[in-house]
Each structure stands twice: as C-alpha cells, then as structure tokens.
C-alpha cells in the first residue's frame, strides 16, 4: 500500500469511528428543541428519576470508597497466598452480565436468599427498596473503582511510605499523609468511572430492586418505562445522562493527569500497569 493510501485509510477509519461514537449523542439533542427538553425537566417522572439516581449513586459511591479503598490498598501493597484470586474476585462484577448480577443479588439477599433469609427474620427486607438499588449499583460499579485504586496505589513509590515510617508516622498516618495524596489522581479517575457505570445501571437494578417511581426508578429505568409513553421525556433524561457523563469524563481526564504528575510510572485507563 502506498504511504498516501495508508494515510487516507487510517484517516477514513478514524473519522468513521468518531462519527459512529458521536452520532447517537448528537441525535439525542437534535430530535427536540432545547426548550422542550428543559420543559421535560419539570416532568415528575423525570425529576423523580433524577433524584433516585442521584441519591442511590451517591450513597453507593460513598460505600465503594469506604470499603473499596482499604481493600485496594491491601491488594496493592501486600502479596499473600490467594492474592491473585482476591484480585479476580474484585474484578468479577466487571465481566458479569448485569442481569446475572441481579439474579445473584436476589439469590443472596432476596427474601429466601442465602443471607436474605437471615435478614428477613431480623425484619430487614431488601428487594424493592431504594437500598436495593444502592446495593445493585455498588455491586456493578465497585470493580471499576477498585481496579483503578489498586493501580494508583501500586504506582506510588514504596520508599516514600517507608520514609514516612522511619520519620515516626505509623501506618495510618502514612496512608493519609503520603499514600493517599499521591494516589489521589488515580482514585478520582476510578471514582468517575464507577460513578458513570453506576448511573447507567439497569439490568441488576430492575431485577433486584424492581422499578417504582420515586422509590427505585432510576434514570435508566425511567427511560425504558417512558420510551413508548413519552418519547420526549426519554430524550430529556437521555440528555441529562449525556451531560453528566461528559462531566464525569472530564473528571476522569483531570484525575489521570494529576496521577501522572505525582508518580513516575504511567497510569493507563483500565489499570493495566501492575508491576509485580
């Protein structure tokens, strides 16, 4: 192939790829006027879905950070028998089809589930509650954060933590004053990714939590429900999700740039820089 032909081929393929990715986004905003979309934002279905999505995603994110960060730090800083298995388990929800995740959650936490039956006798039932949405979201989104966090922690120079210890700081102080600030960028990137995934969660949610306006109906569930009833409401909600996604992508970019500036190893998007 001549050089020119190759350049044209690569250019054309890139254009097609970009157009393909961009078209659905543009189409969402092109089908109705912005005024109409804004008007839809006062539609109770849209508002309620937005609130449910926001609340459940936020709570899920807090849980992911609280439990995922120490787990990621442990997996990044220590090698123990079963380490590889632990990492695989953490990544499992990533490759699990959401519907399967939903079924799994029911099997575990449903009324007659493995853990659920014990919870039920204690008076706690999870299916059909907003808590169930939070759990489903946390389940499918956590691997995205944890993987990124592991990579971020692995990218920090271990001699810095060692230096901190010799200077009189215990492991906890070392974590908060040295490790965390240096891993900050990667953690933010992981946050953005997992938040985005959580916002878009459908299959596991509808299976485990069901879909009820104001209680469990998130934006994706509402989009599906309104699809045949009120297409412009669907467009409005889609538009909202697109905008949020763009913001999250920005956060992801910024996070990755921060990470790159504080570590010597480069951090790739899906945490592929395991050095050990």
């Amino acid at each position: 192939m001549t050089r020119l032909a190759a350049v044209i081929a690569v250019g054309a393929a890139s254009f097609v790829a970009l157009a393909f990715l961009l078209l659905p986004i543009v189409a969402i905003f092109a089908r109705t006027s912005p005024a109409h979309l804004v008007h839809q934002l006062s539609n109770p279905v849209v508002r309620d879905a937005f609130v449910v999505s926001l609340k459940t995603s936020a709570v899920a994110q807090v849980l992911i950070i609280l439990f995922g960060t120490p787990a990621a730090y442990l997996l990044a800083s220590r090698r123990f028998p079963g380490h590889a298995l632990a990492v695989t388990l953490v990544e499992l929800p990533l490759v699990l089809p959401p519907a399967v995740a939903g079924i799994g959650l029911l099997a575990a936490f449903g009324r007659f589930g493995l853990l659920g039956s014990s919870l039920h006798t204690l008076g706690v039932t999870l299916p059909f509650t907003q808590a169930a949405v939070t759990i489903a979201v946390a389940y499918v989104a956590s691997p995205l954060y944890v993987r990124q966090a592991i990579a971020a922690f692995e990218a920090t120079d271990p001699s810095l933590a060692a230096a901190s210890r010799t200077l009189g700081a215990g492991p906890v102080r070392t974590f908060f004053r040295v490790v965390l600030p240096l891993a900050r960028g990667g953690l933010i990137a992981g946050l953005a990714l997992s938040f985005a995934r959580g916002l878009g969660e459908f299959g596991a949610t509808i299976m485990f939590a069901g879909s009820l306006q104001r209680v469990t109906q998130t934006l994706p569930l509402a989009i599906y429900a309104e699809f045949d009833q009120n297409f412009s409401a669907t467009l409005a909600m889609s538009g909202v999700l697109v905008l949020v996604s763009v913001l999250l992508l920005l956060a992801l970019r910024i996070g990755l740039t921060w990470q790159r500036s504080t570590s010597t190893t480069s951090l790739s998007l899906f945490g592929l820089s395991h050095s050990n």
Partner: protein
Amino acid sequence: MRLLAAVHLTVFAAASLTNVFPKIAASASYSFGGSNMLAAQIEQGAPADVFASADTKLPAQLHARGLCGTPVVFTRNALVIVVPRSNPARIHTVSDLTRRGVKVDVAAAGVPVGDYTTKVLHTLRLLTAVTKNIVSRETDVRSVLSKVALGEADAGFVYATDAKTVAGKVTLITLPGRAQPDVRYAACVVSTTRHGGAAKAFVTALLGSSAQAKLRAAGFLSRR
C-alpha cells in the same frame, strides 16, 4: 406450519406467548417482550414481519399509522393473581391485597397486562388501596411472574397462561368474573415486511384449528 419452512419470519410477540408460539411455528425468529415496547420498536423501524400483541389497542394504533395491516384477534386470555407457593402473606382474595405490608408486583402502565390490572382494580374500587402496596412496575408480564415465583413479591397480576408455566412455584387466585377485563390478543402483518405472503399465512394460520388447539392446551381462551 409447513408453509413457513422455507422462510424465517421475525415475529414480535407479547411475553405471554413465549412458550406457546414456538410450539405453533418452530422456524420463526421470536422477540418476546412487553407488547408496548415491541410496538414502539416497530414504530422506530425495527425489522419485524408479524406483530402479535396482548391487546387490540396497540395493533390498532399501528394500523392507524399505516405501520401494519388490519389486526386480527386470534385468542383471549384471563387475568389472574398469582402468589408464591408458600403464600407468605396469606393472600386468598383480591381484597387481601389491600392489607398493610403486602408486596404487590404489576407490569408498568402501557404494558397491556399492566393496563388490564389497573382496569380490574378500578372496577373493583380497589385501585387506590392496592396501589399503595405496589412495589414495582415491571417491563413485561414474565418479570412479574418471576418475582412472584422467586418469592420476592407476595402477589402479582399475570395471565392465567403464565401461571401455568410455573405451576409448581405459584398458586393461582381467580378474579371475580364481573371484574375480568376483556383480554383479546390481536396480530397483524407489519407493513415493512419483505415476506408479505408468508407473514399473512402466519397470521391466518393462527386462526386455524392446529394453532387454536395448541393455544387452548396452553390455557388460552377461545377467540370468541
């Protein structure tokens, strides 16, 4: 249906037809789901040859917009309440559904079985009371059925034919005859089909004795 052996039709059909349609015509490709979602997909240009809905309203709407041919009623169904085998909430009649804390699962508005449910409850003047206990609005009737069969919901509104498919897991509770809605299934040939002849034959065959027998065996009611 030997006529269809040579042509693979794409049939969009209501979820409640999931078990019986493949018995009637094995060689077609089926997409089962909430009839409203399927109709919406056809409106957006999905490549279906035949549309079989759990009501007459949706095919009529499509027909009015020139998107499908004249709808034909091919069978009827009955709406029932199902409860898990163990009946944890001890539901025996429809009015038990108004008890506090009972978890009732229904299909979303727009899904035929969901609209039928609303109609029934309205007729029985139980709509407001039962609505308080609705915990989820599913995308199709089979999702309602699953939630009840798994024991997660205390009760759900499905078709009698659906209850039959998981007989061991659920118990059926009939609705008062006067409240029973007129559940009629209609099918039509999608206008954009490229197999017009085979599609028409499919719809016609639904009215034939072989298909009708299979529908009766599955629990569907006669079409008149």
